[in-house]
């Protein structure tokens, strides 16, 4: 008997790929579009109770008294749990004070309304736009860095100095499925939790500590999740409380956050503001000096600003002096938000670079091309800049800043660039081949809507010579082998690597079973088009179904892991990306419309081109959202969030996003650089790299640059709402 490991795990060569890199429909698309897919919010259990939170209406307060007696007296209210009791200091609007658990959702709401709380309202800080006005105690140093000699560089007569200030406000994730959980005990120390999570394999361990039962006794299920974007990694306060109260009352408990609670408490993206001074060599038009002061708030705990992303991408500017501050403010606490720190970095860097290009009278595209050697991947960016420029018709539409005609409707172009890691996370996979020919694959992973299920099916199908729809993908359950949390674009590399190895392992075992009946060696076999074929005798083959009859009673189990130190890497990290916006601005109303938006993106070897493109469209649209619409607005007097709802926390609709072109860098690409040099890059060669984060990074900067190009002045701060555009046109643009 041959020892397994005679098949290579390496991805098939470009000409030999059947499914990989093609446009494959997502395998769970019908389940979702037809309403049959069950999300956490859709789980109804017999005898289930509903939980609702009373949240704090103040930005900063101390709880003087809580009276829950009237709530407890309501028939059908089963439990009133004080989350933060008398004497507690509450540091943001929306934090949980008490939880009411009742027979119905309506009764739980009645219970919440019946709780009486007396607050001592305390001073708050909710406006971080002016660093100098932030109270000392709320401002913490976030680091200083120095490279080269900035003062000397700025003092040189060869250097032109450009100064600006830029801002990007706090926003929220606004997952359409709010955070929440259904907890049901199936024994004294056995719990099942349905939870809306990006971390199926990691929830049980976190809950076990709080509940003091073995993690293995907790089953976490999340078959479908209605958005996460970085905000759903833990069980959260509501997960722990639901489980505790379900145990106490011996009934399943469901808690899903109401929309206001969701927007106030379940995560924000930290704001970012910067004063930037750039030095550009008059002759070479190269950036030679960068000085910046960066600040922002990540909520009551501060944090959330990263000194390492300003300057963004152009990290090789020879002379730099930068400092960062973290502001503690009485606003919703931060959570990872798709591509943490990077959108801020782009919005505070690419804008300054575009302003420098405009001040020097240089075409923005030429300026970025001229400075790509200050980045870590000049060849990639050169290719992507030139391809994006073609797609947006740069030469046809470009004009110097503000030279956009005399009418009220003016057009402009803008550029931004980005990078991301996207390394593969740890992952284990099991592939089963059954005697009846059916195949399933199990991973404790989750599909956030990125297409993870489909990618797994494609990899198994490609490996076994089957079709993706023949593969049953089982994910979303902690009973399957653990996979990492889906965050930071780590999933596709992780699950495709472990799945490929598991499928290859299973196929080797099948070949060993089938080979004797065909009278050939296992190493002579290949699986293709639903058959097992001999390489040496082309007319010798057997159908997949017949081949599987040789398996015997027990199914074949193939195992795969990522990383696998005994195997070559199948995934890696590090991507570039360039985006360009073409906007139309109405100078009378201040309204900005997207005419065309181009996103050029590399992400290594693409498994499913269709869902990969959707990631790019989605990232761009989320970026258009924060460029033009989204912002958490706080009342400076009361400190309250003014828009914890979807009427005034604005997201774009289907008619608000213009034409979007997603161009994926695939295979070998050759582009002639401006200096005549031919640049060739094989984008498949590094293997699979994650894609969720990169396309959301650049839209803010690209659109801001396009608006500046159209109207002739910089609107310093996102979102580019009509009032800010009009203020900038009137010479009153500021960070507020």
């Amino acid at each position: 008997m041959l020892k397994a490991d005679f098949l290579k795990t390496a991805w098939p060569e470009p000409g030999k790929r059947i499914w990989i890199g093609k446009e494959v429909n997502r395998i769970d698309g019908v389940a979702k579009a037809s309403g049959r897919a069950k999300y956490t919010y859709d789980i109804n259990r017999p005898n289930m109770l509903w939980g609702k939170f009373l949240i704090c209406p103040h930005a900063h307060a101390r709880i003087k008294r809580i009276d829950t007696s009237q709530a407890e007296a309501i028939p059908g209210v089963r439990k009133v749990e004080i989350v933060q009791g008398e004497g507690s200091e509450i540091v943001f609007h929306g934090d949980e004070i008490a939880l009411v658990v009742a027979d119905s959702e309506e009764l739980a709401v009645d219970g919440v309304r019946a709780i009486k709380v007396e607050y001592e309202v305390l001073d708050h800080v909710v406006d971080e736009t002016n660093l100098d006005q932030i109270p000392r105690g709320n401002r913490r140093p976030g680091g200083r860095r120095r490279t080269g000699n900035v003062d000397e560089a700025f003092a040189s007569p060869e250097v032109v100095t450009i100064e600006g200030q830029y801002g990007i406000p706090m926003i929220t994730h606004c997952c359409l499925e709010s955070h929440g959980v259904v907890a049901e005990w199936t024994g004294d120390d056995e719990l099942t939790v349905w939870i809306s999570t990006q971390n199926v394999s990691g929830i049980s361990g976190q809950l076990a500590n709080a509940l003091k039962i073995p993690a293995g006794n907790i089953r976490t299920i999340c078959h479908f999740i209605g958005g996460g974007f970085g905000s759903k990694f833990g069980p959260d306060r509501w997960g722990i409380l639901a489980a505790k109260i379900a145990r106490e009352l011996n009934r399943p408990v469901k808690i899903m956050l109401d929309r206001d609670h969701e927007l106030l408490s379940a995560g924000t993206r930290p704001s970012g503001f910067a004063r930037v001074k750039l030095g550009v060599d008059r002759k070479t038009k190269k950036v030679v000096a960068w000085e910046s002061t960066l600040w922002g708030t990540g909520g009551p705990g501060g944090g959330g600003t990263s000194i390492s992303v300003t300057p963004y991408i152009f990290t090789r500017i020879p002379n730099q002096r930068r400092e960062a501050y973290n502001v503690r403010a009485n606003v919703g606490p931060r959570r990872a938000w798709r591509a943490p720190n990077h959108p801020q970095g782009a919005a505070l860097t690419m804008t300054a670079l575009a302003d420098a290009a405009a001040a020097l009278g240089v075409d923005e595209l030429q300026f970025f091309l001229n400075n790509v050697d200050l980045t870590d991947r000049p060849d990639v960016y050169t290719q992507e800049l030139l391809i994006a420029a073609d797609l947006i018709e740069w030469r046809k539409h470009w004009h110097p800043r503000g030279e956009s005609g005399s009418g009220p409707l003016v057009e402009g172009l803008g550029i931004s660039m980005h990078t991301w890691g996207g390394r593969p996370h740890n992952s284990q996979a099991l592939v089963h081949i059954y005697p009846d020919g059916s195949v399933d694959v199990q991973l404790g992973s989750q599909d956030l809507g990125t297409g993870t299920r489909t990618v797994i099916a494609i990899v198994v199908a490609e490996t076994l010579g089957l079709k993706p729809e023949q593969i049953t993908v089982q994910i979303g359950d902690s009973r399957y082998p653990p996979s990492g949390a889906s965050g930071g674009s780590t999933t596709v590399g992780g699950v495709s690597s472990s799945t490929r190895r598991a499928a290859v392992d299973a196929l080797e075992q099948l070949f060993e079973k089938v080979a004797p009946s065909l009278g050939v060696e296992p190493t002579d076999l290949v699986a293709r088009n639903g058959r097992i074929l001999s390489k040496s005798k082309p007319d010798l083959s057997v159908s997949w179904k017949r081949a599987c009859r040789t398996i015997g009673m027990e199914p074949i189990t193939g195992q795969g892991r990522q990383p696998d130190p005994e195997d070559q890497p199948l995934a890696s990290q590090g991507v570039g990306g360039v985006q360009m916006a073409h906007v139309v601005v109405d100078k009378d109303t201040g309204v900005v419309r997207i005419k065309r938006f181009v996103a050029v993106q590399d992400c290594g070897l693409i498994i499913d081109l269709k869902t990969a493109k959707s990631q790019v469209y989605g990232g761009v649209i989320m970026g258009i959202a924060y460029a033009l619409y989204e912002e958490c607005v706080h009342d400076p007097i009361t400190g309250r969030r003014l828009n914890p709802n979807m009427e005034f926390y604005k997201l774009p609709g289907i008619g608000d996003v213009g034409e979007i072109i997603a161009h994926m860098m695939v295979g070998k690409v050759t582009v002639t650089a401006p200096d005549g040099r031919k640049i060739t890059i094989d984008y498949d060669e590094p293997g699979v790299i994650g894609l969720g984060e990169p396309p959301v990074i650049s839209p803010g900067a690209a659109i801001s640059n396009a608006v500046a190009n159209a109207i002739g002045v910089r609107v310093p701060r996102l979102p580019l709402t009509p009032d800010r555009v009009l203020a900038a046109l009137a010479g009153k643009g500021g960070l507020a």
Partner: protein
Amino acid sequence: MAEKQRGRASDRLRSGISRRDFLRGSGALAAATALRTATEAAAAPAGAASVVGPGPVPVTLTVNGQTHRLKLEPRVTLLDALRNHLDLTGAKKVCDRGTCGACTVLLDGAPVYACSVLAIDAQGHKIETVEALSPDHPMIQAFVDHDGLQCGFCTPGFVMAAVAFARQNPECSEEDVCRGLSGNICRCGTYVGIREAVVEAARKMRGAANA
């Protein structure tokens, strides 16, 4: 267009004023709409509306051709009745106040926000939820073919709004779709696929039975 249809469907409701109309009337949307709603509400005969509740009352709903007899508090929305009492969870609760469209169902063929219709007011009307559509319905297939979905949480609402829109606009353009489906919001950013899907499905539905 979908917006107008929603308005008409709401007008037919028994109490004459829906939660959505109330919210509209409170200033968020067009003044003309608010005026119309207020006028109609005032014109409703005083004796016609009997006082019910606040405790559970018998409610009969006709959903996807089936009759369901429930006991619901009068404050229970159609959305909560469907989701919490009939386990029809295709319509999603997202904004819970008539902004996002994730709860869209059809009332006598016209799309409504189920979060903004009271269950008692939906009595006597033909309610269609996404569960009424066969999985091979042209609209569902088109959403999948054009990848007009990601997390999928907004998708059933979009599909229902799109079905109602497409039945009336078989020759629609992408521009028409942008207007017709302006009452639904997606967070993942699937609008590119949805625009293509609805245009394609609208044409296919014209020739298909039960579409």
